[in-house]
């Protein structure tokens, strides 16, 4: 019951004490788990002691005394309280006691304050110690972990080593067993071989004996055989004699056979001769009959001989005649050929003349231009030849002209003569015509007279028949003949005149031609001069061209050489050819190997550098250096990490790009296909809105607008175009609630409109 009195004053202390206790407990738990629980209680109750230090051991040592001391005063207090006598003395005593207690309390309070401070210090120190210990512990834990990992690693190594040892042992055992087996086998084999060898020896000995026996027997046999041989030799001698006899017999037989054959042949011959004889008899009979006819035949023969002689003479004559005929025919043929040749030559002559004239004509035209120097030279030759020929022809023509002039003169003279003759003839003809006229008149008169006389005669005849008619008619006939003669004469003279005038015209034309020809000679000379100039020009051009040709040939050769070089260097036409190689070729493999090696060396280098660095930092005394190096290496250098990330980023971007491309391509294809199949182009002007434009829309503004609401239903929005299909909307959207039908209707409608308009 003492505690409740003290308690309120103790309260703050107990709080602080609790803290302290908590800390201490933790500390205890960590440091000294083996200490007694009661001892700890004692420690905790020590709040009288003023000097509480961080030293734990002192606390522990002091605590039992205080434990004994402390419970005394409350006990006394308690006992004094329980007795309660009413005497003042006691009261005073008690007061004194109270004062004492108060003093005690004050003391205690001071102590508590000091303890608090100490406790705080201790707590701080504890904290520090705890932190240190913690760090120590952490290190220990790490070390332990390291050691564990090492241990594990070593264990694994050991394990693997053991396994290997096991394996090797097994192998060794196996090998030893094998080798033993082999050894045994070999031993067996050896024993067998020795057995065999012995057997073979025995066998050989047996064989030797056998062979010896055999040899002996052989020798015996040989003796026997030799005797046999002698016998045989004798027998063979005998046989030889007998065989010789047989051979002679055979020869004889053969001879006889041959004789027989000859005889047979003879018989056959005789038979054939006999048959011939018979035939001959028949023929001789026939010949006898013929012989009877011989004298008659002789006479006939003589006659025939005479005839023959006559015929021979005839034959000779005919031969002569034939020869003559042949000569004549040859002559005829020659003449014919000559004629033909002459005709041909005439034709050729005419042709040549024509060609000449044509040449002349062509030269005057001057339109021909030389195509090439060779043609030009040819032409020049031609022209020269033609010139020469023309000169000749000119001479000829001049002579002809002279001749023709003479002829013309002659002709003119003749013409004059003829004209005079003609005039004479004309005169005579006119005279004749006059005469004819006169005669005609006379005839008329005479006919009239005759008619008159006829009439008279008729009248007389009626009276007396007198024949005057015949004389008159004969006279008339004569006169008519004369007229006819005149007429023929006139016609002849006229024909002559015409022929002469035609000849004259011919001569004139010839003359004109000759003159023209003469005139044409000069222009030709001019043209030949022009040609010469042209030739010189052309020659120069040819020379230039030849030099150019040589140059270009050289260039071509150079280029050819270059092409060849390029070809040898492996040049190719990328439009036709491509170059490929096997991907896993030795070079690629070698390079890859090299790269790998390089990478490995780099890694090694890095490791060694780190190792070096660590060794330098720690002055060469480092434990577990490889571990540290690996730890360091695991922390990737930032630049490398960045590079990795960059490459990853690049590849990701690349992938994205490709996906975009593919997506845009497929979406484009999809849209195109949709347009082709449905006849509508789908656009998305803004989110959840779809614009459909028909393939057959008349204007660009004619489109339908749809919107998708959050439920996923598609609704038609009002546009000018959709308003024009009110009826269809009523029918298909409201009645059937089908958008496809509506769209189809619009397509049909627009198509109909277009075809109508078309």
């Amino acid at each position, binding site marked *: 019951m003492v505690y409740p009195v003290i308690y309120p004053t103790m309260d703050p202390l107990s709080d602080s004490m609790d803290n302290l206790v908590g800390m201490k407990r933790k500390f205890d738990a960590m440091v000294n788990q083996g200490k007694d629980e009661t001892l700890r209680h004692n420690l905790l109750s020590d709040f009288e002691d003023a000097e509480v230090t961080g030293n734990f051991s002192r606390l522990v040592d002091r605590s039992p005394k205080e434990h004994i001391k402390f419970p005394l005063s409350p006990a006394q207090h308690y006992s004094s309280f329980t007795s309660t006598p009413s005497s003042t003395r006691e009261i005073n005593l008690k007061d004194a006691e109270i004062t004492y207690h108060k003093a005690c309390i004050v003391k205690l309070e001071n102590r508590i304050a000091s303890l608090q401070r100490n406790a705080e210090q201790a707590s701080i120190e504890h904290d520090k110690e705890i932190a240190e210990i913690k760090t120590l512990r952490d290190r220990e834990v790490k070390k332990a972990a390291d050691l564990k990992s090492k241990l594990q690693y070593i264990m694994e190594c050991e394990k693997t080593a053991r396994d290997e040892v096991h394996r090797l042992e097994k192998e060794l055992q196996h090998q030893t067993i094998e080798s033993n087996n082999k050894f045994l086998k070999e031993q067996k084999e050896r024993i067998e071989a020795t057995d065999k060898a012995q057997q073979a020896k025995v066998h050989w000995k047996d064989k030797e004996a056998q062979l010896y026996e055999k040899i002996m027997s052989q020798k015996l046999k040989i003796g026997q055989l030799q005797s046999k041989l002698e016998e045989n030799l004798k027998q063979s001698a005998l046989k030889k004699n007998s065989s010789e006899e047989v051979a002679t017999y055979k020869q004889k037989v053969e001879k006889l056979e041959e004789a027989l054959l000859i005889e047979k042949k003879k018989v056959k011959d005789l038979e054939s001769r006999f048959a011939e004889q018979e035939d001959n008899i028949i023929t001789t009979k026939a010949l006898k009959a013929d012989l009877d006819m011989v004298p008659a035949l002789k006479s006939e023969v003589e006659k025939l001989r005479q005839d023959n002689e006559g015929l021979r003479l005839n034959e000779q004559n005919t031969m002569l005649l034939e020869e003559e005929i042949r000569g004549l025919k040859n002559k005829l043929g020659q003449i014919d050929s000559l004629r033909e040749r002459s005709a041909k030559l005439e034709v050729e002559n005419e042709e040549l003349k024509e060609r000449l004239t044509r040449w002349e004509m062509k030269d005057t035209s001057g339109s021909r231009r030389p195509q090439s120097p060779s043609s030009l030279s040819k032409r020049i030759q031609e022209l020269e030849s033609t010139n020469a020929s023309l000169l000749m022809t000119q001479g000829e023509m001049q002579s002809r002209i002279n001749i023709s002039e003479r002829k013309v003169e002659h002709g003119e003279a003749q013409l004059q003569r003829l004209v005079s003759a003609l005039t004479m003839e004309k005169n005579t003809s006119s005279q004749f015509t006059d005469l004819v006229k006169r005669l005609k008149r006379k005839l008329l008169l005479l006919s009239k007279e005759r008619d008159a006389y006829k009439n008279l005669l008729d009248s007389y005849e009626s009276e007396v028949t007198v024949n005057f008619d015949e004389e008159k008619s004969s006279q008339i006939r004569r006169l008519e003949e004369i007229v006819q003669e005149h007429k023929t004469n006139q016609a002849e003279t006229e024909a002559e005149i015409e022929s002469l005038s035609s000849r004259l015209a011919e001569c004139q034309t010839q003359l004109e031609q000759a003159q023209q020809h003469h005139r044409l000679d000069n222009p030709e000379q001019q043209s030949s001069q022009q040609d010469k100039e042209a030739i010189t020009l052309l020659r120069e051009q040819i020379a230039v061209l030849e030099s150019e040709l040589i140059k270009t040939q050289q260039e071509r050769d150079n280029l050819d050489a270059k092409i060849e070089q390029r070809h040898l260097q492996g*040049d190719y036409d990328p439009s*036709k050819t*491509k170059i490929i190689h096997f991907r896993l070729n*030795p070079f690629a493999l070698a390079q890859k190997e*090299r790269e790998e090696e390089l990478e490995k060396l780099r890694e090694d280098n890095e490791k060694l550098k780190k190792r070096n660095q660590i060794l330098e930092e720690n002055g060469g005394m480092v434990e577990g250096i490889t571990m540290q190096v690996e730890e360091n290496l695991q922390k990737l250098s930032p630049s490398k990490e960045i590079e990795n990330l960059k490459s990853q980023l690049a590849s990701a971007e690349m992938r994205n790009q490709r996906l975009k491309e593919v997506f845009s391509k497929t979406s484009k294809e999809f849209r195109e296909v949709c347009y082709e199949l449905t006849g509508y182009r789908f656009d998305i002007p803004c989110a959840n809105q779809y614009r459909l434009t028909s393939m057959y829309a008349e204007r660009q503004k004619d489109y339908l607008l749809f919107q998708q609401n959050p439920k996923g239903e598609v609704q038609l929005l009002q546009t000018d175009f959709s308003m024009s299909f009110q009826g269809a909307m009523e029918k298909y959207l409201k009645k059937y609630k089908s958008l496809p039908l509506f769209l189809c209707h619009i397509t049909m409608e627009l198509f109909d409109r277009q075809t109508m308009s078309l």
Partner: protein
Amino acid sequence: MATSTSNCITLSGSTNLVAEFFHYGLNSILYQRGLYPPESFTHTQQWGLTMLVTSNKELQKFFDEIISQVKTWLMDMSIEKLVIVIKEVGTNVVVERWQFDIESDKTVDKDTKREVSIKQIQDDMRSVIRQITASVTFLPLLDKTCCFDVLVYTDKGLEVPTTWGETTPHFVYNSEEVRLKSFTTSIHKVSAAVAFKKSD
């Protein structure tokens, strides 16, 4: 022997001959240029010559791969050149380039037969191989680690297996070229040339 008949050649026979030539040519170049250790080559007799053929398994596999593919291209006449490029592994610089131009007679089909002298062809092939061997005398020494690659020039439109990829022509910078001998099977004509770095 590649062909059974003595004096008649078909497309497949010609292909086999040319492929055989490539096989020995590649091996000779590798041996002569010292790209692989000489002890990794074994002696064989071919066309009356002692040839060296690699016994390196990986290399053999690579050659089998290449030659079988080249055969198909020889058959359909889509191959224009076969090039062996020797490069320095460290610097990736092309130092040598052995080029085999292949001219194919495109009028030939599977059933065509040509009268040829197989012996003549083999003589020609042998002389090309001899020239390859002899060219070591004028080629510069390969003093750095080198390795080789085989390039094939084909028609642009040709579909190639996925194990093959397009590459560059691998020109030799500042090169000198030497044309070597050629041979023809009358169906395929192969002319060899070598380009190498000019010595300074």
